[in-house]
């Protein structure tokens, strides 16, 4: 079990055992990250595979200015966004009227397991899914999301609002099903 710095060094040298260890250390968490931007687990695994190939090919560019986990997560997210962008035109440059007061903070999700929440996320339209994941879970600002997705900041905000509304509806329905 290597520490992070030694693990990176050994991976850069092409040591397959170290690369395998890095993969096993991060693959589980990164698969969940990938699934937040994908519709199915198969798609998420394709993204994960592509992302890890990039990670190993570019690990010597990792300057240790951030944590290794954060750097890997960025690559997984970027790969996921690029991967899905190839298939669907997701982000029209249309600003949707901003709706700031959504009243959704009262949506209770504490009792839901992450797999249930993943299913809810994957049920969102792709654009909403990505923006919601980026903003709510990864913690990006709308300006940063706009840069990443080549949309306006307003579009990011409106798509996020739409995602919250859709999630609220789904959670309410899910609660009704659960609680009869």
């Amino acid at each position: 079990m290597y520490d992070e710095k030694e693990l990176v060094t050994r991976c850069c040298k092409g040591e397959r055992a170290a690369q395998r260890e890095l993969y096993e250390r991060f693959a589980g968490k990164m698969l969940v990250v990938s699934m937040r931007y994908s519709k199915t687990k198969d798609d998420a695994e394709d993204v994960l595979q592509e992302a890890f190939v990039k990670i190993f090919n570019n690990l010597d560019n990792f300057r240790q200015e951030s944590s290794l986990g954060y750097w890997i997560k960025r690559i997984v997210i970027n790969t996921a966004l690029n991967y899905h962008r190839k298939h669907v035109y997701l982000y029209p440059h249309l600003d949707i009227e901003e709706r700031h007061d959504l009243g959704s903070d009262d949506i209770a999700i504490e009792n839901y397991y992450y797999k249930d929440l993943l299913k809810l996320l994957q049920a969102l339209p792709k654009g909403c899914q990505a923006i919601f994941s980026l903003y709510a879970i990864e913690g990006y600002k709308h300006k940063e999301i706009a840069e990443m997705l080549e949309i306006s900041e307003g579009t990011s905000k409106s798509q996020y609002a739409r995602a919250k509304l859709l999630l609220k509806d789904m959670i309410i329905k899910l609660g009704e099903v659960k609680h009869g």
Partner: protein
Amino acid sequence: MDDSKKHLSFEEKWQEAFNDAEEAPAAGLWKNIESSINATESSQYKRRFIFYRTVAAAAVACLLVLGIFTFGDRLIMPFTGQPDTTLADQKNKNGANTEAVQNNTTQNNGQQQTNEQSEGIEQENSISELADNVTPQPSAKHSGQANEKASAKARTNDKALANQSETQPTASDKMISEPDRYDEVKTGVPANAPFNNSDRSLTLRPNSTLQNPLYSGAPVTLAALPANGVEDLYAQPIEALTVEQQIYRIPVVIQDDKKTQPVFFAGVNVSTGYFNPNFNSVASAGPQANSFDNDITNFYSAETTKLSTKSYYQNEPNNYDIGENNTAQLSFSYGVDFGWALSEHWSLESGLDYGRLQTSTASSLAVRNRSNQELYPLLITNNNEVGANSGYSAARYTQADLNSYFDFFSVPLKVGYNINFNKLNVVFASGVSANFFVKNSVTDNTGQLNALTIKAGNGPFRNVYYSALLSSGVNYNILNNYFVTIVPTYSFSINSLSREESGFKSQPYSFGVDFGIRYIF
């Protein structure tokens, strides 16, 4: 419910839910990743192998040339000083004079004893020493009674060897090859052959009648002749000597007709070296030098204000920098060359080369084609083009190393000064080259970006730029009219590769080694 979670915002609740979430990937996923890495590594190893193989081949070629240059003289002895009576070989070359020499040789063999008696011991010693001096064997510098016995023995040996060589060539004869710039006159050195010390020329005559000279006039080179001539060596006028009839090989520099006429040569070459497009900022407009990253030297940037106003850059307080730091990579070019040897020392060369010159660069910015959603690298070279086109928008991606290839056709014109050493020719040359831009291709190893290709006539590059050439190298005669050439060359641009309106300057330079084969017609 945990009370602390009640105070979490909606987003924080989601973050909390996924905080430690993990999902086991499919069992075969690592295998797929491993095979992808193997494929990438094998291509990298292949490129490294090509590099090391090229370096090894160059090293072997250099060692070979150095070895031949260093030890070649031991194998190629234009002058051995060994007695040789195979005058019949030269019959066609020397005509009637040779026949006269043969006759004289026979005559003198018969009269040898008489000559020795009549000319005296001292003179005989001198002649023996002359013979010894001409041969590579060390000998006494001055004549004297004490040397009589040894000198007589040496002479006897010479005569025995001369008699033997009439029917059987000596081993040293077999080692003799014919250098291009020398011819050999096999002749008898007659008694009282006049030696002109002032112009260092020698008149060789078949006998002492001073008629029908076998060879006369300069330039004549006697390989073992001392600097001040034979007179200094023997402290007496050469005319006073009675020269015993012996047969020697004497190298004679001949006036080759080919040297007075331009000699045409042609060949093929492959060049390996490093090329740098050397992008520079323009002080007053366009890209500005930027200390963006201390780790990157020679970094230049361009503001992206010319990008589509619909892009997100519009709202950025600080415009992003486009960086293009090109690092030279090992590159190859191939071509044909031809030229003329105008004189013994001067040559004129030209040719046609095609080079695919590789550099690496890095960028974390890209542009997206709005129509097909494809990502392309955003570099200093395509900034203006995509910036003026609303069909593109800017994007960020994970910083990646890019390969940038510059393809050129080049037509060099060089004047060379040649110094000849037997089979080796050292040449110093300078000239100019017209470099015709074909295309610039930028590819992304990580596969995030599509290849960007800027062709001639489009983009920021001129169709042709000129560079100065400086080179020095060697040509070695390997076989008959074939030469191998090894010529390290440095070139630097005379004018900018980039157009004035491009907003940046590109003044490429390169250093490489040309390896080639030439045929002299």
